[in-house]
């Protein structure tokens, strides 16, 4: 296992989760479905690795979670963005866009 790759993945996964939750509170399976839907299947994350990411974000106070009833009337854990999570999403998006733009510039130049 090479750590840097994991870290890069982890970083982008966090961003995706935060972005997804900025729309509405959602349970884990729903988040994974939403990411797949929005990305039209290009971003296929290993579904299991979503949960450590959720736990990590919750521990850093960016999201909170609570039990609720799902659309098919089953108990599910719903995650929602906190105020600081929303702030963090803004900052992350900014830096991601800067990074992506920078990368784009470099790629276009060569």
């Amino acid at each position, binding site marked *: 296992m090479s750590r840097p790759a994991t870290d890069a993945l982890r970083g982008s996964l966090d961003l995706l989760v935060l972005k997804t939750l900025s729309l509405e509170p959602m349970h884990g399976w729903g988040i994974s479905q939403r990411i797949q839907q929005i990305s039209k299947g290009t971003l296929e994350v290993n579904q*299991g690795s979503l949960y*450590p990411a959720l736990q990590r974000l919750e*521990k850093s*106070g960016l999201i909170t979670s609570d039990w609720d009833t799902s659309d098919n009337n*089953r*108990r*599910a854990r719903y995650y929602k963005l906190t105020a*600081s999570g929303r702030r963090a999403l803004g900052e992350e998006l900014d830096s991601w866009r800067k990074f992506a733009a920078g990368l784009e510039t470099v790629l276009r130049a060569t």
Partner: protein
Amino acid sequence: MSWIDGARARLALLFRRGAAESRMHEEIRFHVEREAERIVRENGVAPAEARRRALVAFGGVEKHKEELRAARGGSWLAGLSLDLKLGLRMLVKYPGLTIVGIVGMAVGVAIGATGFAIIDTVVSTKLPFASGDRVIGIQNLGGGGVEGRRLNLHDLAEWRTTLRGVELFGAYRTLDRNLITANGAVTPFRVVEMNASGFQIVGAQPMLGRYLLPDDERFGAPPVVVIGHKVWARTFFSDSAIVGKTLKLGDTQYTIVGVMPRGFAFPINNGVWAPLKLNAADYAPGRAPAVDVFAKLAPGTNLKAVNAQVQAIGKRRAAANPAERENAVSRAVSYANSFFEIPLANPKVRVGISIAKMLMSLILIVVGTNVAILVYARTASRSGEIGIRTALGASRLRIVGQFFAEALVLSCAAAAVGFVIANFVLRYLMTLLDRAAGEQIPFWITLHLSTNTVLYIAGLAVLASVIVGVLPAMKATQQQITTTLQQLGTGGSGLRLGKVWNALIVAQVAATVSLMPIAVYGIGSWILMRAPTQTIPVNELLTAALYLDRPGAGTDDFDSYAGDEFKARFASLQADLVRALREEPSVANVTFANSPPGSEAQERVAIDTIGGGTQTDSTRAANSRGRWMLMGGVTPGHFEALGVKPLSGRLFEAGDAIERPYVAIVNRSFVRLELGDSPAVGRLIRPLGRNEDREDPRFYRDGTRWYEIVGVVPDIPYVAAGEDARSRVYVPMRPENAFPVTVMVRMRSGTPAAFVSRLREITAKVNPMLRLRAIEPLEQTLDTEAELSRALLLAVAVIAVAVLLLSAAGIYALMSFTVTRRRREIGIRAALGAGAGVVVRGVLARATGQIAIGVAIGLLLAMPIGKVMSLHMFRGWGIVILPAVVLLITIVGLLAAAGPVRRVLQIQPTEALRAE
């Protein structure tokens, strides 16, 4: 407030562990079910297939769960409680290892904790009252001239006036006196004469009446005393109207003016206080009675500054009076520490104390290493478990942690047992100390398991867990998972043990055997301890030490006990005492000696070559250093009083002590051990004195006088089982020449114990300054001694058994482990056609070889150890026990080898080959 949200989430994850686990399970179940439903809906496959695909998409449920657990933070905590449960289960599952480990480590912990507690008690002593740490002692240490404490009284006047930053100066000295109450009860007592400031330093208020005041110290003031709670309760039966009543100390009558509360025992461990009425002006410099000085540091000063002032004064006084104060040193020290003379300020000493404390744990480290070997052998059988857990995603740290927790359970159990043992030993030691020297042990010194010691024990438990758990686990988790898992199928253990471990077996056997002399001595003697054979009627004898107190003389004014005038007075009072006792109908006889039977002092004695001596004798005599023997001084009539009849020659006669002082009587063991049973009467011996006692005239002999042996008596009082017979030499003595002198009363009727208080009364009636100490029926003295040696032997035996047990288990584990490792090799050999006999012989030959080498080395080491400790391991039971233990070790080793061999022989050749 992200940190609050985060913290709440963290806390919930950390402490609501059960909830976190069930939440995780439920979330993942929900996820997989929803995904499966989706797949059924979208792809129309069967539910079972959909579930399989959902699980694949999720990607390793257990792996993710492990990741979640690890990320929860403090996973070690959850792991720990689980591991502790596992550890407890391990204790039950491997009872052999549990027993051996607990017994071995408990002994290690007990020794460590006892040693630590003793060092801690001595080193970190504090006076148990407010600002007790500011109390100091100011001392003069003697140089070539006079004893330092005799300078104190004169110096005190100058210290009082010149020392800055010091207050509440005071001095004290102790006097040994008979405490005689109005109803005539007599108790020997150590009284302290102390300045009134001593009460102020402690700041204690009297329970009844008042304490001493400076006015009481005035010459001509009526004699008064203050008594302590214990004396008030025991001697005066808690009389609430005690103030104003009188008591006698020796020949002086005192009025009781107060009672101090429980716990007050300043300055040492005292219970009766009288005013100190000493005036330096009455004595020539250096001739004053010995006193000790205490004082209190005023706020804002420190000991160092005061010490510098005291030293300066000492130097100035020494310059003015060089004859007396040559090399004398003046100093100020912490009062609490002044009784042990440990220079704590010296960094080297501090380092030394730390090292000593660490050495105390050395035994546990040795024991722990042994247990670690056992655990390592067990770890080998669990390498499959380790491999599987690693494959499932457990980190190395996690696995090592599990082994640590398991070891922690074991070592905590051992620590608990060790704690109980140490507590018992310390209490026992304290009782012994109290009995031996109660009033000399400072009241603030109590041997007990202090907080420090308990922390030390806890530290020892963790240390033991690290040795026993972490080290084997580190070693076991070194190799690659794949190797472990591969070997799992073959049944072999992947842990590699090479020559090192073969050497370890040899070393273990050698160490065990070399400990034999001590083990044999301890176990053998303990088994054999029994009632000694008596050659004198011990149940009829009462012994006591008789003193004569001098008016005005303190405990330490030794020179007042010398001189012809004192001796003459002592002799005439002794004669009065004998007369008074002979009038008692229950007394059969009275006699004097310089020590009770069995407590004679050691002295070197040379033996002549004349009188038909053999070659060996002359070699001994030529060696002018002589041989150590027990030397007793007895009065003429002593042996007759004890009912002893000479085996040959005669007993001492009335004139021997005066006109013919150079005669001697020896015991039966002397004749056997020193003369090889040749006739003793007429032979000459030369007592050489005790080098270390040259300044003590009681023991000093110039070593030029030849004494003629005039008689032989049986061994007195006894030869204890397990103790070697000792050569004893008796010389005639005049009773006034021993101080204190041992008086022995032989009863005609009634028990010696019943006569104790009567003897005190008669003695005090002859003269109140005649004081008896250590009054005890001889039987009890001997019992106490026997009890003490029994306790010591028990301790040695327990340690020896623990070591033996541990070694046997270690040998078993090592042996069975190495043979298990050769399992495949043996299987292949069997497959290739080797007969069972050949295989077994091959393995056992190697095992026997290792054991034999170990035993040989061990015996070689045992000889010098036995010699140094002068234990005779080939005498008596040693001759049975030693081979028995060697046999035991051999059997243990062979049994350990036999089990695996038997299992190996059952392997089918195909199995062995498949392993390759």
